[in-house]
Each structure stands twice: as C-alpha cells, then as structure tokens.
C-alpha cells in the first residue's frame, strides 16, 4: 500500500538496469535535457555538428555531462539526469536509429542486440526486482 510519494518512489530503485525519470533526475538533468531539445532545430544541429564542444559550452551543464555527451555515453547521461526522449534528439542528430543507440546501453553489440530483439526481446524473467531476484 502506497502511503505517500516517498514509498511510491522507493520501489523504483529496485528495478534492475533501469533509471526511472523521477523529479530528482529531472532536476539534475534539467539543462542537459534542454540542451538536447535544442537539437530539434536544424540550425542548432548544424552548429552542434560543426563544433560540439563550443555548442555545449553555451549551456549551463556540468563538465561531466558535457564529456558524456561528447562520448555519447548514454548510460552515463542517464545517471546524470538525462531522459531518453530528450537524448533521442542527440542520437537522431547523429543519424542513429533507436535500436543502434539503445543497444549501446546494454553492453551488447548492435548485431547481438538486434538478434535478441528478433528472437522476441529480453525476457522479464529475473529482471523484475533486484530484491526478489525474479
């Protein structure tokens, strides 16, 4: 029984390999996500492509966040408050598909990841709860 927002949120940390986009993450990643969203405009994409570092320096984001963008380290970006729908503007700018970008977060090659999906996807067995190991 969920009594308040604390109890509601507490369970989110029990999901293996998953960051739920809570207020805490939304606050940490606010400017990072706003940066990503700016890439919806073609002129911004062109400026970003021309000099990624210079474009990133226009935003009030941390050096760690900047480096993670430069590295296209999406797991790191999630840890630093990025949200995947915002970050999608970055990998779309790179011309990557969702499958290509998403696979980089799983530790699998694109081919292996694609093969897993073609075989029906990742099974939820053992992936539901860290605590309950189910």
């Amino acid at each position, binding site marked *: 029984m969920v009594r308040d927002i604390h109890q509601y949120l507490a369970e*989110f940390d029990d999901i293996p*390999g998953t960051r739920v986009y809570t207020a805490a993450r*939304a606050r940490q990643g606010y400017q990072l*996500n706003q940066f990503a969203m700016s890439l919806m405009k073609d002129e911004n994409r062109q400026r970003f492509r021309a000099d990624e570092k210079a474009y990133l320096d226009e935003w009030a984001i941390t050096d760690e966040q900047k480096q993670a963008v430069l590295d296209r380290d999406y797991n790191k970006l999630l840890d630093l408050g990025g949200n995947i729908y915002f970050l999608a503007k970055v990998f779309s700018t790179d011309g990557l598909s969702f499958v290509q970008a998403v*696979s980089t977060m799983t530790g699998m090659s694109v081919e292996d990841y694609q093969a897993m*999906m073609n075989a029906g996807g*990742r099974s*939820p067995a053992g992936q539901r709860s860290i605590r309950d190991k189910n």
Partner: protein
Amino acid sequence: MARITHGIGCSHIPVLGFAFDQGKEGEDYFKPAFDGFEWTRDFLKQEKPDVIVLVYNDHASAFDMKFIPTFAIGCGETYQPADEGFGARPVPPVPGHADLAWHIAQSLILDEFDMTIINEMEVDHGLTVPLSMMYGHVDEWPVKVIPLAVNVVTYPPPSGNRCWALGEAIARAVESFPEDLNVQVWGTGGLSHQLQGPRAGLINREWDNGFLNRLIGDTQELRHVPHIEYLRETGSEGIEMVMWLIMRGALGKSTRALHRHYHVPVSNTALGHIVLEPVDGSVPPSPTLEGNNEAAQALIG
C-alpha cells in the same frame, strides 16, 4: 448528438514512421507490422469517423522541461508535425476540431479534471505514426483530430484510475455535444518496451496479452495496476499503456474486440493494436459539484 463509436489502441513506434515515409512497408522486417493494420484501414474507410480524440504522449517535442502538463488538450485549428531531430515527417498538417475540443475541455474542467488547454503546438510521432498506420498515404487527413497529450515521461504520470476516469468524463462530454458526429477515441503508446539502460529491449508477451484481454468485456481491473507493475513487467517505456485506459474508460461499461494484433519485434518495442466497440457504453454520472446540486453535495458528506 456526438457519439463515441469505437476505441482503438495502438503502439506509436517511430521506426514505423520512417518505414512508412520511405515506402518500406513491404519489406520483410516491416510487413507483419503493417499487415496488422489492413483490417483497420478497411474498417475506417467504412466507418469514416469525423473526429478522433487521439491520446498520446509528447516525446520532448512540443513540451520541454519548462512546463510539464499532466493532461493537455489541443483546442487549436491545426497542428504541424514536429522536427524530432531529423526533419519533420512528410505528412500533412493535422486538422483540429476546435469546436468539439473546446467543448470537451470545458466539460472536463467542470468535471474537476485540471486540464491544460493548448492552442498552438507541434505534434510528434506519438500522434502522427498511428494516423499513418490507420489511414495510409494521404494528401490530407480524412479526419479531424483532438490531441490529448499525457505526461508519461516525468514521474509520476497520472494513475491508471485517473486515466480511466478521464475517459469516462470524455464520454460524458462527447454525449453532450449537439452536432451529429462519429467520434473515436484512440489510445496510443506501448506495449512493453524499454529504451534505456542495461535492461533495454525488455519485452513481455504474456503481460501485454493479458493487458489486451483486460480491455475487453466489463472488467475494470486495469484501473488498479500500479505504475511499478508496468515498470517491472513491461519496461520503463511500457508505462505508456496507461494512455490506453483513457480510451478504454471512454467506451463505458463493456466492450467487445473487433480486431486484435500483436507482433514482436518492431525496433525495441512490442507492437500491440486493438479495435474495440462499446457493448454497453454507459459511464457513471458526473461527480462534479460546480452545479451545487443536492446529489453532488451528498457525495462529499
């Protein structure tokens, strides 16, 4: 009198938009996905709905982090497709139905839903991909659309119960619109998928099909599925399924399925699609107290 004739649920997978825009519907990988919509394309040609209340979520396109509305209803005249990072989809602008949209928006607020009214916005794949799947290649959309954007990105999204109740309130609103209109409600997003982190790629065929089952008939079990269950069982983006409950709530007491389709894989996502018809479309009366009537007052003791 306007009436809700059918409800449609379907995923809104971006890669199907690409495939569609590049004429790849017939390729081996995509064919099974598109084939599942053939029945529905024929059905819509016969049904010719006038308006679709299209429930979807914005994927960081119209709304950035500056403001995050839980429920936003589009009351504008027309909506342009958004540029999501690779140019806007080459589909026609989406015509709104401002008369019905404003009527619904006002009715919902009287019914104590705290709507955000939107007059101008762009719409992303969440809204345009389902339209492409159902109507195919068109020079202009043969239907008007009322976008209903739900926050399922920043936590918490609305509860399943709140979504279902919103659907019921939409049904009451449509019923009180004087013009004779054939209105459908579409719920989009899902089914199981996770686009982030080491667990990405999760698909839960069994849970998804149980979800589809529970949209049919008179069970209201899905009202009570908590967010954590979607997250654990269907992946972080599986939470989008709460939007289908708005569609289901709008169909009233009981439904039957006219068409159903489930396919894995499409990109990272389980594709689900269902066409529902109300059997008994009745919904509870409005609990609103604005009218200050006795029955309403009794409700709060």
